């Protein structure tokens, strides 16, 4: 992007001064007060005062111009007339990704959307969101977004485009749409469907193609195979006791992972709530006292307890009280309550990290594993023997099959087999067959969004073939970036060149835009109206929060204008459509307010499974051979590459590898050793004659003879962040040494016959090295009691196992604390390691809420990343003191039994905070509510606090990270949080701005007490697992207090006598005795 094109940002002003300095304002003054204009420059007199006052009023009115004129309705129920300046509002809308809508509530500060949160009422959110949704707000303000309509390289405007397109469309209409094609990404929007239907009726020969680089093709094809119809498979993890995940990252990269984590964690939580015998022991010297416990029981009924915690074991006394009349359920044996997860996978995913047992297996052998399992379980279908042969000789897999088959059969009705989206259709179909016998309520089927099933691959292949045959005259590409991510063998770019009229609609002027005649800048989802369906079919309304910053257009508007639809504004299209079914303005307003239409979820269907078809498909499917396997996986940060210019996503560490700003060849330690590879070695990958250079990164526990590469990197036409070269990052990113891109474009190896994995990849060391930035490259916990973990059985025997390392400590403090921590609100946090999967949503949410800057790859390499909350990932059977990471000393560990743990780590708000003692200027001090506060204005930046912080959670502004921030990015900043200047220390504050806001509210409402759950820090708010709970630990009835009383509760580094306010609940694994090593 040329620097000259980036001037247009100046059209947004944020202050009176700035407005007064613009030529427009001077003109305005001259026009209105021709005589007085010259007086402006001199001293303030009455006239000038009046002018300024008028300008102030003018400005106040003008800010409102950024609000869309259509009626949008904030979630709080207030309408625009009641808005209080400076008080934020939330609006319900939806975020669309992968064809599914996730309901979100977006905070608006005086007309500027600033933070995305989950919509608790929305079935695809239930209050949480994915990290993608969190980061989507940065895209809105991205200064590199496409800002104008373009014809070739020339800037045009929308009217120019309409003028040029109208005769073309008229001509096409005359030919019934012959030669007209559309290429879009998956989208469940009913409004879009309405437009498609309109186009299909007016131009029956036009054709609609769909392509997503990351898709649900295999699952739908598998369902089509098994049931004869492309149904959607929904896994009810809240009902499943035994889960077998086959190459399925349902807690990680899957598009509906938010809801999967939500449901999975419910089952993870049951049976683990055992109260500590002595809740004060070891962990809470200042905490709850015995006498408070009775009060806790008494007040329990008055406090709302989140649903998933209602299942706490009934206590002896509660029987006579009978809170709210719920009958005390009979206590069940605990081991039947917490679920058990088996994961069989090639890449080490967060799902594998959560698994109670994990088997590493090449992706190509997973089908074989499932066939052998089916045989063992007594499922009959053709071709099972043939496929089961693929894992012959793998003793561990054999052991697994016996144990898992037994477990699944023993839990019929409460078990489920989940197959990942990358597995071929016949594996999905076989899983459906097994689920037919074991699943019961744990699997639900609904109809697919599309009526007729056509795979993405077939769809884009058809388009390319037609284009090559000269049958395509006009192609409208509605979002997506097929030039970058279409299968390499289709040569999409060349085929596109043969299309006469190429029109692209997109947020960015990307690789595809560069190949088109016309590019229309798309409106961001927070700028336009729309709709969509949640994973379960719930219809949801998308309302804008801000008028398009760059006059972008939505796909709906573009299609409506081009096809001559009755309405041409997206608001009218959506509203008219929904008014038909809603019946009235009131219902519409409610739908807009809620962000969804209640009871519109698809009804469950119960299709009959066709064993014969599955058998013949298995018979037909080839059996995987041997050799080195390559896996193409969706990236945890980039998705399919669309987040390349999103700095938050570039800098959020991958949940398992902890890599930022790069992708790499992920390889197991044993395979790397066998091939003589070490971290950062550059290798040349060769697959079917296609080559790619990528560095190596060892991921212990990855399947043997298998490598994984993430999609979405190596973008060539993107913004400043994605290019890695710009004023801000130019110097910071000089370690980008290959291809001048961030990471390598793995789509160059991905062909239509190897979309997910392929055998026969070759790997050759080039002898060069590429520096990779990882925020955390240490595997082992060094035998330290950081993440405390036990098997479920051991936990039942010794519920207080997590407190064991702290026993017998006697601690004396030299200083008397100035505050009595038994008075008033005492904030604390409890983090449940048993439910946290490590999805990173909290990291991005915190970044968004607290105006946390990104620093660029070079500074991550220097260890200067700024995240206030980080996800610590450890592998648990790695030997301690691994100085050998450099490769000096051989050391042995068993990758077959490797497990991973995740620990969210943020400021622990120690009561005796080591940081406070050493700050020479008292810039970090305690407050009476137990917060370790940080006065940025007082900080001189000695960094002594960070040195003395045992958790190393403080972050120092080594440079001015906010330098060169564009005007649009400034609009995104949360006004409630100070933007820190260089030279000061910063850290997690438990979102102190939210605490203050709640306290103000409570004060306004008659000095009432703050209710439990009223304050939710950004990390806790977004957490799909509800693993992070915040509240008043002085209130024995609060959720956090109850968690702190649990047996699994422990504090970190308690021997330092720091008494952290954040506590952790130990991790449990529900192991199967037959599989224990």
């Amino acid at each position, binding site marked *: 992007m040329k620097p000259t094109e980036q001037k247009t940002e100046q059209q947004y002003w944020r202050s009176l001064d700035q407005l007064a300095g613009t030529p427009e304002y001077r003109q305005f003054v001259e026009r209105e007060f021709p005589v007085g204009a010259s007086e402006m420059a001199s001293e303030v007199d009455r006239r000038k005062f009046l002018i300024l006052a008028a300008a102030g009023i003018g400005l106040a009115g003008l800010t409102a111009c950024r609000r869309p004129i259509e009626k949008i309705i904030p979630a709080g129920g207030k309408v625009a007339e009641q808005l209080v300046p400076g008080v934020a509002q939330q609006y319900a809308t939806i975020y669309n990704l992968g064809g599914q809508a996730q309901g979100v509530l977006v905070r608006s500060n005086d007309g500027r959307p600033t933070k995305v949160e989950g919509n608790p009422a929305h079935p695809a959110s239930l209050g949480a969101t994915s990290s993608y949704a969190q980061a989507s707000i940065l895209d809105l303000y991205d200064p590199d977004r496409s800002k104008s309509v373009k014809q070739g390289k020339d800037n045009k405007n929308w009217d120019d485009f309409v003028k040029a397109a109208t005769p073309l469309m008229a001509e096409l209409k005359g030919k019934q749409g012959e030669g007209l094609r559309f290429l879009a990404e998956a989208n469940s929007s009913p409004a879009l469907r309405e437009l498609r239907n309109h186009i299909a009726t007016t131009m029956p020969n036009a054709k609609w193609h769909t392509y997503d680089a990351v898709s649900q093709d295999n699952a739908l094809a598998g369902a089509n195979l098994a049931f004869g119809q492309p149904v959607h498979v929904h896994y009810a993890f809240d009902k499943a006791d035994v889960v077998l995940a086959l190459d399925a990252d349902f807690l990680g990269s899957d598009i509906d992972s938010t809801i999967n984590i939500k449901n999975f964690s419910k089952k993870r939580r049951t049976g683990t709530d055992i109260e500590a015998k002595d809740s004060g022991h070891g962990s809470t010297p200042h905490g709850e006292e015995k006498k408070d416990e009775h009060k806790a029981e008494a007040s329990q009924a008055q406090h709302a307890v989140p649903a998933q915690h209602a299942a706490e074991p009934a206590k002896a006394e509660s029987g006579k009280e009978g809170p709210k009349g719920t009958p005390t359920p009979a206590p069940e044996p605990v081991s039947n309550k917490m679920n058990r997860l088996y994961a069989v996978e090639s890449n080490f995913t967060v799902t594998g990290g959560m698994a109670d047992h994990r088997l590493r297996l090449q992706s190509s052998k997973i089908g074989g594993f499932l066939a052998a399992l089916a045989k063992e379980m007594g499922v009959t279908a053709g071709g099972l023997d043939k496929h089961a042969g693929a894992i012959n000789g793998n003793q561990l897999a054999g052991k697994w099959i016996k144990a898992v088959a037994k477990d699944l059969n023993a839990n019929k009705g409460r078990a489920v087999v989940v197959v990942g989206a990358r597995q071929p259709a016949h594996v999905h179909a076989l899983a459906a067959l097994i689920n037919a016998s074991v699943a019961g309520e744990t699997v639900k089927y609904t109809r697919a969004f599309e009526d007729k099933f056509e795979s993405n691959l077939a769809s884009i292949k058809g388009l390319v073939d037609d284009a090559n045959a000269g049958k395509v005259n006009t192609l409208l590409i509605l979002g997506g970036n097929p030039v970058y991510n279409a299968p390499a063998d289709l040569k999409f770019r060349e085929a596109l060149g043969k299309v006469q009229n190429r029109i692209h609609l997109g947020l960015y002027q990307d690789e595809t835009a560069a190949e088109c005649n016309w590019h229309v800048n798309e409106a961001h989802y927070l700028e336009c109206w729309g709709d969509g369906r949640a994973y379960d079919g719930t219809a949801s309304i998308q309302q804008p929060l801000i008028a398009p910053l760059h006059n972008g257009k939505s796909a709906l508007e573009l299609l409506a204008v081009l096809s001559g639809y009755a309405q041409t504004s997206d608001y009218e299209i959506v509203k008219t459509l929904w008014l038909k079914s809603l019946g009235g303005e009131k219902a519409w307003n409610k739908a807009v307010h809620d962000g969804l239409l209640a009871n519109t979820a698809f009804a469950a269907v119960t299709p009959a499974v066709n064993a014969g078809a599955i058998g013949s498909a298995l018979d037909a499917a080839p059996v995987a051979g041997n050799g080195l396997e390559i896996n193409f996986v969706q990236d945890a940060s980039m998705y399919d590459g669309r987040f390349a210019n999103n700095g938050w996503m570039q800098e959020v560490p991958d949940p398992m590898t902890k890599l930022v700003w790069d992708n790499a060849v992920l390889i197991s330690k044993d395979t790397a050793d066998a091939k003589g590879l070490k971290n950062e070695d550059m290798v040349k990958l060769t697959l079917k004659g296609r080559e790619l250079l990528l560095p190596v990164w060892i991921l212990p526990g990855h399947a043997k003879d298998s490598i994984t590469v993430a999609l979405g990197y190596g973008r060539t036409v993107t913004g400043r962040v994605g290019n890695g070269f710009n004023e801000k990052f130019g110097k910071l990113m000089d370690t980008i040494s290959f291809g001048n891109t961030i990471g390598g474009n793995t789509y160059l190896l991905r062909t239509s016959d190897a979309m997910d994995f392929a055998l026969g990849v070759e790997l050759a060391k080039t002898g060069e090295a590429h520096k990779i930035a990882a925020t*955390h490259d*240490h595997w*082992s*916990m*060094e*035998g*330290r009691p*950081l993440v405390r973990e036990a098997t479920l059985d051991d936990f039942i025997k010794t519920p207080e196992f997590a407190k064991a390392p702290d026993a017998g400590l006697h601690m004396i403090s030299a*200083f008397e604390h100035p505050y009595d921590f038994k008075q008033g609100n005492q904030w604390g946090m409890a983090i449940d390691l048993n439910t946290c999967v490590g999805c990173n949503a909290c990291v991005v949410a915190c970044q968004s809420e607290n105006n946390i800057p990104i620093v660029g790859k070079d*500074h991550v390499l*220097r*260890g*200067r*990343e700024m995240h206030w909350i*980080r996800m*610590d*990932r*450890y592998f648990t059977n790695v030997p301690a*003191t691994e*100085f050998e990471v*450099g490769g000096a000393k051989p050391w042995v560990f068993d990758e077959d039994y490797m497990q991973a743990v995740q*620990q969210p*780590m943020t400021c622990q708000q120690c009561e005796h905070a*080591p940081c*406070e*003692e*050493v*700050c*020479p*200027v*008292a810039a970090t001090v305690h407050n009476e509510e137990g917060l370790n506060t940080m006065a940025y204005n*007082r*900080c*001189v*930046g*000695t*960094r*002594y606090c*960070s*040195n*003395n912080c*045992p*958790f*190393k959670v403080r*972050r*120092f*502004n*080594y*440079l*001015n990270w906010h330098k060169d921030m564009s005007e649009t990015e400034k609009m995104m900043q949360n006004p409630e949080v100070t933007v820190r*200047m*260089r*030279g*000061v*220390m910063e850290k997690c504050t438990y979102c102190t701005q939210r605490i203050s806001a709640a306290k103000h509210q409570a004060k306004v409402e008659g000095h009432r007490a703050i209710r439990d759950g009223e304050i939710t820090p950004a990390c806790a708010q977004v957490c799909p697992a509800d693993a992070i709970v915040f509240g008043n630990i002085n209130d024995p009835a609060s959720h956090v207090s109850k968690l702190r009383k649990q047996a699994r509760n422990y504090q970190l*580094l308690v021997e*330092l006598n*720091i008494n952290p306010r954040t506590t952790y609940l130990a991790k449990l694994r529900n192991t199967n005795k037959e599989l224990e090593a």
Partner: protein
Amino acid sequence: MQAVANEFKIPKENPLAKPLLIEGEQTYNSLTEAVATVVEGKTPRNWYIAFAVSVCITAMLGSMLGYLVLTGVGVWGNNQPVGWAWDITNFVFWIGIGHAGTLISAILFLFRQKWRTSINRAAEAMTLFAVACAAIYPGFHVGRIWMAYWLFPLPYNQGMWPNFRSPLEWDVFAVSTYGTVSLLFWYVGLIPDLATLRDRATTKARQVVYGIFSLGWRGSNRHWQHYEIAYLILAGISTPLVLSVHSIVSFDFAVSKLPGWHTTIFPPYFVAGAVFSGFAMVMTLMLVARWALNLQHLITMYHLEVMNKIMLVTGSIVGYAYTMEFFMAWYSGNMYEKFTFYNRAFGPYAWAYWTMFTCNVVSPQCFWFKKLRTSIPFMFFLSIVINIGMWFERFVIIATSLHRDFIPSSWGYFRPTPVDMLTFFGTFGLFMTLFLLFIRFVPVIALAEVKAVLAQQQHKAQGHAKH
């Protein structure tokens, strides 16, 4: 006079006799001539060359610091686990060097160690210049230097006092007190010599300048009496400071929670290390000054040998401390402590640890041998080795403790940037600039005190002759 001196020479064969502190046939006048001509004579060309080089290096220091202030601490290599690196390493290094001066001036004065007189002036000057170099770091390493005055307990409109519980705050007081007292002590000692230069002045300018700084010294009995008492009092005040300043600097580490820092052994260990490095630096400078200024008869082999013996002792103390730290880490049973020391010796910074160990513990053991102890090239070489080793000691303590502490996920590695290196190099330029100015304008040897030693030497010799 010459005849007298010859006559009173102590017979060499007496094994109990101490060697002469002043060699050659010296008179009061010859001493004055020897020292004063250094100041009064024509400035040698080599001085100009050395000065020009030093000033250039100092200017580079200035530009590095300017760059730092304008850009941010990020121009250095400091990072997340390693919040302090070369900045505080260099601070402690320079403060340590500044130790020998006051030790020689004050403690040896109180213990009536007459051999100090030949080297104390230069050693004290070195102290001052080292403290000046050291003071740069705590000042400039902070993120917002324009707010650094908040570290001082000043009553201003914020109504905020500094945090007196912070060891960094104690540092502010310790270092500033040490700097002030050292300056006073040095200056008081200079007064009689400045008066000598004033009296010998041949130009009006010199007469006025030296006249102002000699504070009207007339050498009267009354002046001498007051002078001796003032000097004694200052020596008394300085003596605890010698011990306190580095003890307090060590508290920056000892009072923290960090494994590898949190040890009670630090105060004596730091003081011993400071004396060790201070003497090594005095040795380096004295050997050069002695050769360049032809002062071999005043700074004799006896002086050098005594200093070498002190280095041997303090080097051994430091070695003991290193060993004891390992013992304590093992004996404590604390896994973090154990790991830290294991990591120091065998982790990624093992190279730094073993450099330190070799330079500081192994190399001074050579001074057990008289031949090496009295070899000027060898002791020059070793004094530099010891200074390198002592720099590494501070680096090892600071960086290796920080880079891997409690939570393995936050482990990192520190690499210095060119700005780090040039800044450190620049402080040597500043030090040399100040030292060159010192030898050009101030008597490098405490004339008045040396004369007293000469008188005593002659008196003793006369006494012996009479019996």
